[in-house]
């Protein structure tokens, strides 16, 4: 006979205001199998836990039911409490009478009735609970960081600093990310590449860090502590180990009309290229879409001039498989395509640019050598109009609009305006804003400086239409404070285009079984208390892939993600989850349906000999579950047509008992 204790929590007034907790405890006393029931203000408090522990000892309880908040909140707490007095932690059940009862009901009578039903269901399950023991799995002491921008680099450096090996997978030929493309950073106006390139060198030289540049993750299997990751090393046609980065091949390459992605297509590069002078690794890459040798079989100049003999036209994509204990997503962002916003004439005039393009036009290493010249006629613009919130804060997504604020645009626009005024004080600058959002240390002061000291015209309003006409851009706009419609003859228009997640992020999230929100930003395990962890164990989030943020926030989050990874890698073994599936070989018909639905690849089939009644043997195909890989989702148990699959801790009979109790 089971001896079950029921403990009903008030949670202050969270539960007690809507549920008559005493009535629930009283009802529990009449449930067969329950030997003790009580209620208490805060079960999770130390004295509440002591109440449970004392009752376990005093009444020799064989099962405990706590009627309280969601098991996500305090299941661990209570399991630990019963464990400390010698009860198997898996003999504890939680009836969620807060989130699923008191918080969603207003009527106390109904709430109490439901709480009693939930309590009875939990008692019915507790009666069938059996003790479970968690297995242990070793932890691979190596981390993978996906993305080599400032987020990925900082995470990798911090993990390496703690003594663990880290690999960075970067899809581009060099690490550095967006920050390497920026000119200056707000609000201090220090040179972006002056602070990011030393970081890149540090990453490149760190013995603990290995960079897989020009590579992509193509498959992820396994689980926390034991991931198996397939990395595709795209054919670079240049031997990384031989190339010295001298750049002679890029000079001699006759194919020089390739849009330069580092300068956002504002100038051209050669078919064999090094993205920029400070690239890490400083190795050339041949662009297979443009190389004459690869496409037409004629040329071969780069191979002839290469003193190191690094060029290999026969290079192919290679896949390698590496094991990792933890994975960090640091996939960053892209600038939204604004060509659908016809009113701004982005596709009609080269003088309408995005802010990142403007960044390159101001950069000393950019296409104009740092001199601000407009793309159409290389003349210096005298009047520049900045348009805020292009594609951000929209509820209509037909043109690719985003419902969120991109967060960084207000600040970089103030920066652009001030830098432009600094270099060319006679420039007239208009900024059309909806709201100027500058929360951050020294941020508002920075924006005010643009207005007060530099005389940038901030206009509360919007641009309705940009018309290219006779080398000018006619900007029609509104000034809401003056209640006027304006027309400005501008030389350039700069669009603060929304930022969006890297286009590879969704595919990656699927491989990692990491969740995403509707905008394709990675979701954190808890929005406030676990901001750098994905809900998927062993997967962590660094930087903008989790949501828009600026550089200091990105670096802070990168460090936080690293510390979580270090915490995981410092463990030699991880306690597994004992609530895993197992199959009854006598009932299994070998139909394979469980293996088909298993999202973790935990089920395999083996041929097994069975001894029959007439003493003959028969070989049958039966399912076997790898308990280290199984995550206990239960998909197999509901799929199995013969009822052979069962889940520890959530067995078919336990679930049926719960349903019976609810229906009684």
């Amino acid at each position, binding site marked *: 006979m089971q001896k079950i204790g029921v403990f009903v929590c008030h949670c202050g007034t969270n539960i007690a205001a809507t549920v008559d907790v005493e009535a629930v405890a009283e009802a529990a006393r009449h449930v067969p199998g329950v030997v003790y029931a009580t209620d208490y203000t805060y079960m999770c408090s130390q004295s509440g836990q002591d109440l449970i522990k004392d009752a376990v000892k005093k009444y020799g309880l064989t099962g405990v039911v706590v009627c309280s908040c969601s098991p996500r909140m305090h299941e661990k707490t209570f399991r630990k409490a019963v464990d400390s007095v010698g009860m198997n932690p898996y003999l504890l059940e939680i009836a969620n009478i807060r989130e699923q009862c008191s918080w969603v009901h207003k009527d106390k009578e109904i709430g109490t009735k439901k709480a009693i039903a939930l309590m009875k269901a939990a008692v019915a399950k507790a009666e069938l609970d059996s003790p479970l023991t968690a297995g242990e799995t070793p932890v691979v002491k190596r981390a993978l960081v996906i993305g080599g921008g400032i987020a990925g680099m900082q995470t990798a450096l911090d993990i390496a600093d703690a003594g663990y090996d880290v690999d960075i997978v970067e899809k581009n030929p060099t690490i550095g990310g967006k920050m390497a493309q920026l000119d200056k950073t707000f609000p201090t106006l220090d040179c972006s590449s002056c602070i990011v390139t030393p970081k890149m060198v540090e990453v490149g030289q760190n013995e603990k860090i290995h960079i897989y540049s020009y590579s992509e993750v193509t498959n992820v299997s396994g689980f926390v502590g034991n991931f198996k990751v397939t990395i595709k090393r795209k054919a670079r046609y240049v031997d990384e180990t031989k190339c010295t980065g001298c750049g002679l091949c890029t000079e001699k390459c006759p194919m020089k009309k390739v849009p330069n992605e580092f300068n956002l297509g504002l100038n051209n590069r050669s078919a064999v290229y090094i993205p920029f002078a400070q690239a890490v690794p400083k190795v050339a890459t041949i662009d297979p879409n443009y190389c004459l040798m690869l496409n037409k079989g004629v040329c071969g100049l780069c191979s002839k001039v290469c003193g190191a003999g690094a060029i290999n036209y026969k290079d192919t994509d290679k896949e390698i498989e590496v094991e990792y204990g933890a994975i960090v997503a640091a996939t960053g962002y892209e600038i939204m395509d604004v060509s659908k916003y016809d009113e701004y004439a982005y596709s009609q005039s080269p003088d309408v640019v995005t802010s990142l393009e403007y960044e390159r036009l101001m950069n000393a290493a950019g296409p104009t050598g740092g001199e601000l010249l407009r793309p159409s006629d290389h003349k210096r613009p005298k009047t520049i109009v900045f348009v805020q919130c292009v594609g951000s804060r929209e*509820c209509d997504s037909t043109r690719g609009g985003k419902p969120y604020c991109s967060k960084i645009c207000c600040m970089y626009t103030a920066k652009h305006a001030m830098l432009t005024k600094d270099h060319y004080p006679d420039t007239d600058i208009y900024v059309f804003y909806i709201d100027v959002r500058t929360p951050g240390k020294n941020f508002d002061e920075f924006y005010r400086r643009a207005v007060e000291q530099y005389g940038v015209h901030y206009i509360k309003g919007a641009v309705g239409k940009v018309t290219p006409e006779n080398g000018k851009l006619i900007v029609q706009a509104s000034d809401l404070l003056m209640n006027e419609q304006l027309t400005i003859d501008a030389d350039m228009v700069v669009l603060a285009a929304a930022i969006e997640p890297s286009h590879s992020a969704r595919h990656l999230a699927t491989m990692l079984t990491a969740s995403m929100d509707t905008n394709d930003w990675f979701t954190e395990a808890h929005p406030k208390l676990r901001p750098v962890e994905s809900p998927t164990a062993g997967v962590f989030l660094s930087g903008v892939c989790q949501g828009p943020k600026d550089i200091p926030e990105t670096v802070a989050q990168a460090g936080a993600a690293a510390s979580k990874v270090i915490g995981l890698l410092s463990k030699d073994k991880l306690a597994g989850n004992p609530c895993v599936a197992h199959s009854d070989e006598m009932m299994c018909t070998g139909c394979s349906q469980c293996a088909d639905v298993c999202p973790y690849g935990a089920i395999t089939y083996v041929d097994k000999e069975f001894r029959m009644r007439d003493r003959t043997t028969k070989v049958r195909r039966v399912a076997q579950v790898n308990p280290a890989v199984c995550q206990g989702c239960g998909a197999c148990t509901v799929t199995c047509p013969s009822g052979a699959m069962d889940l520890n801790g959530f067995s078919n009979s336990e679930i049926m008992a719960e349903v019976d109790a609810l229906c009684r």
Partner: protein
Amino acid sequence: MASNYTVTPEEILAISGVNPRRCMKCGRCTATCPAFAEMEYHPHQFVAMVESGRIGELMNSRSIYRCLSCMACIERCPRQVDPARLIEAVRLAVERKQGGNHLIPDQVPERLEPDMPQQLLVSAYRKYTK
């Protein structure tokens, strides 16, 4: 005159199917409006006036007849507030209050034509009845 009549914001919302509370006051409607100079109240003001219940003033204003229904503001509006729809709703409200029902069901059969689309009937009821 229309000045004796007024409608509630709820009625305008029901006619237009637009929620002016979604407006974030960006001003793209006013920035793009080709009839701006003709108007006493401009598109962004329209939205604010409906939201704050100042509909009587709108109904008396000539602005509602200056709107060309070019729908440029609807095209630009990032919040699906669609000012032109609100303006149309106020215009309709004025018409309806002035004359009462222009169409009664009994008249429908004699006016029917074989190739008349059903949608026309529905919209005629919306426009010509209270």
